[in-house]
């Protein structure tokens, strides 16, 4: 009787370990696949042209090591300017998406007013219709507003692109926030704005970080709108700027790979900043715990 029980228990435990190992194997495989191209880019950015083409999968050795790509990138052309443009556009757009998105979500989740449901549906439509469909109209609008070849045009477009999903996710999350804590702040005499900034924002920090991370990548990587709206030399972004090393007949691969490697950096830094916020538990203890 008892031996049967322990065998069954052992089998159960083995089964669980087996499942966990399977899950981890899949995750590990996925991670390798995801990291592989990045690794190749970074590795090859430290090689000379011959090294890149003869042995693309090898680590940089004494014969193939070269930082010429980085030298080219940092000295020739306006790479630092493009880099700065990308940073400005991304950071400002993110800030606007988070600020406006959170405020809109607060209004939609907290207040009862007539057009509430309609506005929510309008936001969902914004998620479903890709903003690129409106490129022609956007270009016309920017021409009329005299905003072509300015960073502002990009910031406006990216903010519009990021807002619907941000509002949607933040609204859903804010609906789950305790009503009591906001009411308590009202009894304490806070204005609705200060309730938003001093009570709600600290509670939604982890979700803001999540939204920030996945809003950031498409903005940083976008080639379409910089090409159409801001292709002048002063307003190029990194993704567009890299194109200067891709000539019609020759491609400076060292420089391309070096600029791509540098371009990964800010994304990593921003991700590191936000993921610290992702570690939740911040709200634990606010309400029943």
């Amino acid at each position, binding site marked *: 009787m008892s031996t049967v029980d322990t065998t069954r228990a052992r089998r159960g435990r083995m089964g669980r370990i087996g499942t966990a190992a399977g899950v981890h194997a899949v995750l590990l495989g996925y991670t390798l696949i995801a990291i592989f191209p990045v690794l190749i880019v970074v590795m090859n950015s430290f090689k000379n042209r011959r090294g890149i083409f003869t042995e693309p999968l090898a680590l940089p050795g004494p014969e193939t090591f070269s930082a010429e790509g980085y030298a080219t990138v940092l000295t020739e052309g306006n790479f630092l300017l493009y880099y700065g443009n990308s940073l400005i556009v991304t950071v400002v757009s993110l800030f606007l998406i988070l600020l406006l998105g959170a405020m809109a979500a607060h209004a939609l989740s907290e207040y009862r007013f007539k057009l509430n449901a309609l506005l929510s549906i309008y936001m969902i439509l914004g998620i479903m219709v890709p903003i690129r469909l409106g490129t022609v109209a956007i270009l016309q609008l920017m021409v009329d507003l005299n905003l072509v070849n300015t960073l502002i045009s990009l910031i406006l477009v990216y903010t519009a692109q990021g807002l619907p999903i941000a509002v949607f996710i933040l609204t859903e999350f804010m609906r789950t926030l305790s009503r*009591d*804590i906001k009411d308590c702040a009202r*009894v304490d*005499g806070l204005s609705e704005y*200060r309730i938003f900034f001093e*009570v709600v924002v600290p509670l939604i920090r982890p979700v803001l970080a999540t939204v920030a991370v996945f809003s950031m990548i498409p903005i940083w990587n976008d080639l379409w709108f910089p090409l159409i709206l801001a292709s002048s030399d002063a307003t190029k972004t990194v993704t567009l700027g890299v194109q200067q090393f891709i000539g019609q007949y020759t491609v400076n691969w060292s420089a391309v790979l070096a600029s791509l490697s540098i371009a990964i950096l800010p994304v990593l830094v921003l991700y590191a900043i936000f993921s610290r916020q992702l570690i939740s538990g911040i709200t634990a203890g*606010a309400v029943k715990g």
Partner: protein
Amino acid sequence: MAQLVLNDVRKRFGKTEVIHGVDLEVKDGEFVVFVGPSGCGKSTLLRMIAGLEEVSGGDVIIGDERMNEIAPSDRGIAMVFQSYALYPHKDVYGNMAFALRHAGEDKKVIDERVRKAADILGLEPLLKRRPKELSGGQRQRVAIGRAIVRDPAIFLFDEPLSNLDAALRVQMRVEILRLHQQLKTTMVYVTHDQVEAMTLADRIVVLRDGRIEQVGTPLELYHHPQNQFVAGFIGSPKMNFLPARSEGGSGRVTVPGSDPIDVPVKGSPDVSDLTLGIRPEHVGIVPPDQGTITGEVMVAERLGGETYLHVDLGADDPFVVKADGSAAQKSGERIGLRFPPEALHLFAKDGAAFEHRERHSLIA
């Protein structure tokens, strides 16, 4: 002097009215408890007093002032919520000081008031902790401390003990009672737990479906419920109800299988569908041949100090009798039941109680 007056207060959410005209006067320093089943509108009523919910009709008057359009922070109230609602990113001190800081109060005054409140509630060792580092009872004490610091004219509590476990609930109940004796401030307290209501209240307001069923002291509600709902809601285990027939008026009735029973009520109900009520703790147990009515014990729940006998009298619901802990009756045994006349209640078909000829001796 009336501290809080509700004057035909109504609340509509969209088209549905959930509070149907409530009139109430709360005296200065009184401890009033709103009690009723879940969804009856207790919280809504309290939130209207606090100013967190718009008043759809009638007046909310605090002190001498009509408060309908006044902001919550200007009503001189402080509120304690069921979920504690502490600011998670502030420590205990910061939580308690928050409202005063916001009001631009002097630093020294704030410090003095926070420390005094912390002293009353025994929170001094915890002042530097974050809410997540506190137990449920400590969190609720911080929430109460935060209310005390504001020095309100009226404390509002919305089910403050519902999230605590049973033992802690009893302890906090005593603490809240002590707090009221110490501060002597008006308190309005919402709960669905009739034991909390009975133990805390100077006066209880029983609500059902957005209407007041009865207002009175705990003993008034216990001994002289004005209707069958209040009779069933107050007291645990709940009052037994038996279908009764009038026998020629003057309060003489029979229930199926019983001898005539005289209920000492005013007036002379002479209708057939009445309801007789008696609490489990008032029923006497006698040998079968001496009882007003007899029945078979189905279950004996032994709690040690007392025993609940579930007796089959032929009605749908079992009839509960509270007996002594050492009562010898077993399931399957036939017993006789005696109903002391002064403990009987008689209700008309619409649930209204017939008034007793005499008031209970403990009630003035």
